[in-house]
């Protein structure tokens, strides 16, 4: 479902990022509108994480422009960060905090009022079955529990855009289902999701739009129908990988 009339939440234009002599991202442009779940696929080292980190304001880039709700990441990174939430591929959360302290830390940073955060923590922790473990130190959490906590912390300030790097890795089927529901709910409420994944079946079922990146270059993007046509996303992806 393409929301042509809805506002542009994320716009990346001519993004270029180099590491030494290697171009990790090369003249990449894409845009995401409110209500869209946008999948970002590509092989390892294709430039997905670099693009995501640049969009979040963690990585400085060499050329191009990234705007979130019209705000430039280069000019006002803090204002951009207030609008978004980011979940890295392997969340290195603060092991010295308990789960609840970490969530309160994030809520404090985003100025989430006490009663609102309380309600959200209750809602999402219950949805992920993490309530009983919130008093435990994060250092004792499994990878999946850390991932769940990272998701809850990302949703705690009701962001307009959630950027996630491989969010389904480590999640059990129930938690993965919960996350998918949360993603759809956020988009239905006018937010947007931009996430990378290697699980093409998930991308195919979940995403409104998809972009395929190879060697730092965007080789195809558009609505799911535009990208895959009558084939499966996996077939298209493999064909493009061979051709490009």
């Amino acid at each position, binding site marked *: 479902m393409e929301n042509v009339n809805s506002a542009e939440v994320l716009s990346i234009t001519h993004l270029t990022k180099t590491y030494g002599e290697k171009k990790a991202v090369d003249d990449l442009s894409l845009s995401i509108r409110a209500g869209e779940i946008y999948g970002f696929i590509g092989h390892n080292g294709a430039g997905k994480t670099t693009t995501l*980190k640049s969009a*979040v*304001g*963690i990585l*400085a880039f060499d050329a191009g422009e990234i705007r979130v709700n019209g705000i430039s990441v280069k000019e006002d990174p*803090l*204002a951009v*960060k*207030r609008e978004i939430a*980011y979940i*890295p591929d392997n*969340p*290195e*959360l*603060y092991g*010295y*905090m*308990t*789960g*609840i*302290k970490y969530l*309160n*830390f*994030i*809520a*404090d*940073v*985003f*100025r*989430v*009022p*006490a*009663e609102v955060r*309380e309600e959200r923590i*209750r809602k999402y922790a219950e949805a992920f079955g993490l*309530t*009983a*473990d*919130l*008093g*435990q*130190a994060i250092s*004792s959490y499994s990878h999946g529990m850390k991932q769940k906590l990272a998701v809850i912390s990302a949703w705690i300030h009701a962001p307009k855009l959630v950027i996630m790097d491989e969010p389904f890795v480590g999640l059990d089927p129930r938690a993965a289902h919960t996350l998918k529901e949360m993603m759809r709910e956020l988009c239905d409420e006018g937010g947007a999701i931009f996430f990378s994944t290697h699980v093409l079946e998930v991308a195919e079922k979940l995403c409104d739009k998809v972009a395929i990146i190879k060697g730092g270059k965007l080789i195809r993007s558009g609505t799911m129908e535009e990208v895959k046509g009558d084939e499966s996303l996996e077939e298209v992806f493999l064909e493009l990988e061979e051709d490009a």
Partner: protein
Amino acid sequence: MLKILLKKQMMEAFRGFFVNSKKNQRRAPKITVLLIALYAVLMVVVLGGMFSALSVGLCAPLAGAGILWLYFSILAMIALFLGVFGSVFNTFAGLYQGKDNDLLLSLPIPVRYILFARLLGVYLMGLMFSGVVLLPAWIIRLIAVDFTVGAFFGGLLLIVLISLLVFVISCLLGWVVAKITSKLKSKSFLTVLIALVGIVLYYVVYFKGVNIVEGLMNDPAGIDAAAIKGKALPFYLIGRVGEGDPFACLFVTAFVLIVVALTYLVLDRTFLKIATTPASSTKKQYREKRVAMRPLWLTALLREARHFTANAGYMLNLGLSTILCPALGIFLLVKGATLREVFLQFEGVSPDMIGMGLALIICLASSMNAIAAPSVSLEGKGIDVIRSLPVPTKTVLLAKAGNQVLFTLPAVLLTSLFGVIALRGTLSVSSVVFVFVVPALFTVFLSLYDLTLNLLTPNLHWTNEIAVIKQGLGIIVALLSGFALPSLMLVGVIFLPISAVWLGLIYSVTLLLPIIGLYFAVTTWGVEVFEKLS
């Protein structure tokens, strides 16, 4: 295989010497050599210098009395104590709690190789601490007395044997400390408590030792060597090793080798089980509780404070002044009147000079807090979390310096208050002001300075937090300069022909100007450095 592991272990421990973390590039070999040389000079000159002075004082009188073995016995005991004290609280984490445990154990590497590589880290740490005592002692003996083949090899053997004994005791005590604390709640605080008891014991032994040494230096002829030999044979034999006595060398070497072999055997048999058993913890029941929203600066500050208080090694290695300062204050309250009378007996010492001296002694006592010195490195791979949040980098960095101030300033001001109460009626109003102002400014200066050092030598790529807390050039420079600056200022109080009030003003301005400079450096250059770290 073992060579690869050892290389990895050394690279981890001394990464700062080889890699520029800011640029993520390998340093030029010349820079690496320069940094290692600087590190060695700092260890040898400052720490070694202290023990060289002690060795010089002891060597000649004991050689004159014909009991040079006692010289080596005393210094070997000091080395043993310092070595064990310096490494015991890091041994367990260093041996068993590496973040790369799963990775290494999943690779086709014999477990004993992993153990050996880690034990080498423990051994080198002990060798470093015991070496700064025994190396100067050995050199001074050869210079001050005579150069014989026996004394040359005996002294060298003593250094090796003592470092091995340090290693054995550190492994055993480290294991005991870890076992005790693993059974308890509030592990970090209890570990600190146990360590503090150890520190008190250390100082009791140290001061008793100083008294004994002073007694020996005053009357070396009166020492009953036969009685010591009879009552404390191991003590005597260790001393004889330093003198190159063949029987003592053989006997002590055999004993130490047996003990090392036994220790290695025990560790080899238990390593895998301990390293792969998760720490027992009672599950804390989560109870929902409403918490008030905190301002951003406080949120950032509390994040740092939580990190500091969650790690016993962090508190013990870089936060001792929080306890040491009030202890000094209590000592002043108890002994203040006597000290004042003693000082005033010296010609030319004014009450205001005592005040200034007090201010600088408080600075010295506070200099063991270097909490900000590893704070950037401790972000580790989790640095992206804070960088993805809408927190200005300036706030993040100032929270790191602020955390050091938080854990130091209250202790410092309390000590100043106790000191002023102890010297009541003696100090002028201006002196009283400086007793508070100079240590407070020093605390702020040192916090920003330590943070700046870490921004100069960051290391986000560690597998154990203790590596960045305990090792690295930045930490050593932070601790040594924290000690050196007030020492120099104290020398100024004694030798500069300026009134104490003027000196107080000069020192206050001297501290204030770098504070302003460092603040601007941290909030401009430091922000850039932090944002580029990867």
